């Protein structure tokens, strides 16, 4: 089974009028979009606003999405254009102005201090990252290997089964158990 079929199904349901499906897409790609916009805009609160506006634009234009590209590719272009339009409206002269959309993800952006409006969120973010990495370190080796090969290396279940010399069902089970174990530590921070 290929990748992004979940996205395709969620997009289809959004086009049919199910806004909850779009909510799941937002949760899935919010951090990627914020990171992308952050390469154009330094101010964190503006970055959040632009990222949110990008999703709103994507929702309103979802009827025009034909599935010829992946959903995230389409969303990426909307977010990059929204950020560039924002900069144009603010009349900033920045190297980010001339960055092509295709290169945006690798662009380092302006240097300088970023403005944070919520120190609590900053601390929470640090805590989340620390908790996740600590939980991964505490995993049994087979679970750690399975989830690392899946999430970082991007291998398929079949490939992981081949690497780890075990059945696909075992791979599936190990990945789930790893996630569940990490989630037990993460969940209290987010509730």
């Amino acid at each position: 089974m290929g990748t992004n079929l979940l996205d395709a199904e969620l997009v289809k349901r959004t086009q049919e009028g199910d806004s909850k499906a779009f909510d799941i897409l937002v949760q899935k790609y919010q951090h990627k979009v914020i990171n992308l916009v952050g390469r154009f805009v330094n101010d964190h609160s503006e970055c959040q606003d632009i990222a949110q506006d990008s999703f709103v634009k994507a929702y309103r234009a979802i009827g025009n999405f034909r599935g010829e590209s992946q959903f995230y590719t389409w969303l990426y272009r909307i977010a990059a254009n929204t950020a560039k339009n924002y900069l144009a409206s603010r009349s900033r002269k920045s190297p980010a102005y001339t960055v092509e959309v295709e290169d945006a993800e690798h662009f380092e952006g302006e240097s300088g201090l970023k403005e944070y409006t919520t120190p609590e969120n900053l601390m929470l973010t640090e805590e989340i990252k620390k908790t996740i990495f600590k939980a991964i370190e505490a995993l049994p080796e087979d679970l750690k290997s399975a989830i690392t090969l899946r999430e970082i290396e991007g291998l398929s279940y079949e490939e992981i089964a081949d690497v780890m010399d075990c059945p696909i069902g075992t791979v599936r089970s190990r990945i789930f158990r790893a996630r569940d174990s990490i989630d037990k530590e993460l969940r209290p921070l987010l509730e």
Partner: protein
Amino acid sequence: MNDDKQKISHLLDEYSSDYFEKKAIDDLLDDVNQQYCLSRYQMIGQAMRHELPDEINTGFSQEVMSKIRQTETLMELDMGQKKAHSTWRWEFLKPLAGMAVAASVAIVSITLWQSVSFTPGSSASDVSFASVEQQKIEQLVNRPIQVAVPASTSLGNAKLNRINKGMHWKVIRDAPGLERKLNAYLINHTEYSKSMQGLIPQARVAGYGAEK
């Protein structure tokens, strides 16, 4: 609950049959706890790949959906106002249009009655105005007819005699006010035929032919 979490883990990696995936998505959309679980599983992978931003906004998706709902509400209100305005304008104009048509028809009826010329032998159609043959009227007036009518007659000063073959009315054409009364009758008894062309006036005129 563990089964649900396993399904979410499989869904995230898209290792499901088509049916199972669709069913899993149906369940996911109906259960907010499953949605939170999916969000946390995704966060684990993003943290491992260093894709998490420096500051996480845990209410981001709710804010986005709230903005979307606000946008949709504003669009619906705008569309509703435009529709109500155009509906209001049409509902207001309809009775006025009807009254204008009725008034113009009445004016045309009166004008035509006053100026219409009657052709002998012409057949009265269902939509003709005041179809009375002038020649028959002349004949009727000049012929000596014995007519019997009730004492209470709407013709006022008309003289009536009884005849052997039923009842007929003799119309004294030059009786004072007769023409005015006939005109009034036609105006008051103007009707509207139901035709594809809409309101077309017609009048029923009691025939007063002597041959009956």
